[in-house]
């Protein structure tokens, strides 16, 4: 755990922090509200942040409204995490010219500071670092974008109804993976942020900020806030979920979920760790051709298409693939869970399918089942 180094005032401090980031040449991105939804977008100053706005979420339900305080970062989570900043939804990855030379388009990305990244999304970027950069298969396009990203995390004081990061061990406070992290405190008539640095770049920025030394009572308040946030989460993933999904391959519950599942792929699109893509070759009349990479999903039949047809034609098979990969086989593949507990798949599922609820049903089904020789 990185120690807090500085206390900055809410308004003046945030303003200065953004100015310092911009002065260092970073594009500044942060929470913005558009079309009734909190999302990540360009921000010019701290005044652009949806201060005092909060989100109410549930299965298939997201609404923004005014909260009871003028705090900046309570109960908000952007619709999509950092995924599109490091891994665009679609882009040309190769260009073919008339003489059959193949060129790779340059990655165009100005250094970008993302302001107000939640612990779950920081954890998701850590997962992407493994997925896209684990040797020997390094994705240069991801790497270029990731290296241009500066992460200013913010600890969660009030979680959403759909959050369950505490049970995934990824939050509510960010412990690693950020350049700077903020904790918003508004006790005893003062409103400001504890600031800690998690990288050399972060330490350099921190050194430019005006603030005060951190007091013991602020550290205690921060700890209490983290405990309260974790305790406020009503959803949780079973601790043994990886083993549960591995043992549930033939569960009848997959068909029950599939009767509700639209196979629309929204869960995979909003998931900050879902990384599947498809590639397609396109050409224009002028003789140029290019290869396009586009986000795809295990909920698409075409995604598993091989000679003769899709491997996972049925909806139960596709839901099972998503959940067992995310929570089970991800461990075998990358040595960690693929779920960070952000709850987006619950909130943005049009019919409100809840991955934590389905995991609990599978776990309960296993407990009820009589153990046989084959179980492990």
């Amino acid at each position: 755990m990185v120690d807090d180094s500085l206390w900055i005032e809410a308004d003046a401090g945030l303003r200065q922090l953004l100015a310092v980031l911009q002065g260092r040449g970073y594009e500044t991105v942060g929470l913005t509200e558009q079309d009734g939804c909190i999302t990540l977008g360009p921000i010019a100053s701290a005044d652009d942040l949806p201060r005092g706005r909060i989100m109410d979420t549930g299965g298939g339900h997201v609404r923004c409204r005014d909260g009871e305080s003028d705090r900046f970062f309570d109960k908000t989570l952007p619709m999509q995490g950092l995924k599109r900043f490091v891994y665009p939804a679609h882009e040309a990855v190769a260009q073919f010219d008339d003489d059959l030379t193949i060129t790779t388009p340059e990655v165009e990305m100005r250094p970008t500071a993302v302001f107000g990244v939640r612990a779950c999304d920081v954890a998701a970027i850590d997962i992407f670092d493994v997925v896209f950069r684990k040797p020997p298969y390094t994705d240069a396009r991801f790497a270029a974008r990731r290296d241009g990203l500066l992460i200013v995390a913010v600890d969660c004081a009030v979680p959403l109804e759909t959050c369950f990061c505490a049970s995934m061990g990824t939050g509510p406070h960010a412990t690693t993976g950020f350049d700077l992290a903020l904790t918003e405190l508004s006790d005893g008539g003062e409103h400001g942020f504890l600031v800690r640095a998690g990288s050399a770049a972060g330490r350099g920025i921190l050194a430019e900020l005006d603030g005060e030394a951190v007091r013991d009572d602020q550290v205690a308040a921060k700890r209490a806030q983290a405990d309260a946030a974790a305790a406020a989460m009503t959803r949780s993933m079973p601790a043994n979920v990886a083993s549960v999904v591995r043992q549930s391959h033939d569960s009848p519950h997959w068909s029950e979920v599939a009767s509700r599942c639209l196979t629309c792929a929204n869960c995979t699109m909003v998931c900050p760790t879902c990384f599947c893509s498809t590639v397609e070759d396109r050409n224009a009349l002028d003789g140029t051709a290019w290869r396009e990479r586009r986000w795809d999903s295990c909920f698409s039949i075409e995604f598993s298409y091989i000679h003769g047809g899709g491997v996972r034609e049925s909806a139960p098979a596709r839901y099972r693939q998503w959940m067992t990969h995310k929570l089970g086989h991800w461990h075998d593949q990358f040595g960690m869970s693929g779920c960070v507990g952000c709850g987006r798949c619950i909130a943005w599922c049009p019919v409100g399918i809840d991955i934590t609820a389905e995991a609990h049903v599978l776990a309960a089904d296993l407990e009820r089942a009589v153990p046989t020789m084959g179980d492990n």
Partner: protein
Amino acid sequence: MKPKLAVWKFSSCDGCQLTLLDCEDELLAIADAVEIAYFLEATRNRTDGPYDVSLVEGSISTPHEREQIRHVREQSRILVTIGACATAGGIQALRNTRDHGALKSAVYARPDYIDALATATPIAAHVEVDYELRGCPIDKRQLIDTLMALLSGREPRPIHTSQCVECKLAGTACVMVTQGIPCLGPVTSAGCGNLCPSVGRGCYGCFGPSESPNTQALAAEFRELGVEEAVIRDLFAGFTCAAPAFAEEIKRHGG
């Protein structure tokens, strides 16, 4: 010899053919790459078949059309149906589940002048179709990409994942989740480029059912949102009402 392109119209509003004329920037290049051999919407010049590629708009709604489509098929090396009418029957297929005689009398002063079939059906119900482009109207980029693919010997690959995928690729907030607006997006094929949700409207299902449409689960969610049975029925009874998945859902709601 340039490939010969023909564009045919059956029962339809001409909107899909207009999409070809609306290509604007690309239109001259397309006209350069192919011989436009038959396209009455654009030119009265016509060249006899056979044709390399035929784009077919409209549904089969009259006895005459039923014969004519066979003729078109015989003359076409590749036949591509374009739009909701040609691929699903179109809005006129609403008549398929009603009394045709009564409808004719209600609409026309002299119903005896009308020589129409009792149903409006997609082209594929009558002849073999090589590729289909969905939509009401079709999407210009999909049309150009399909023509490019056919001209260069590449397989056209229109995707039939849900419309939701296009919303999420574009970063459009879900209108159902954030506003409670009933939206056919989760059961409708992608392809339009996210037109209606991007302006705060629910999807109308113009591109027809997605590859695995769970219409019952979506209808159940509409009910949760407080949408009445008749309204749920009418949501599915749009431009692609006769596409099997939507037609079945219409029946479940008293249609």
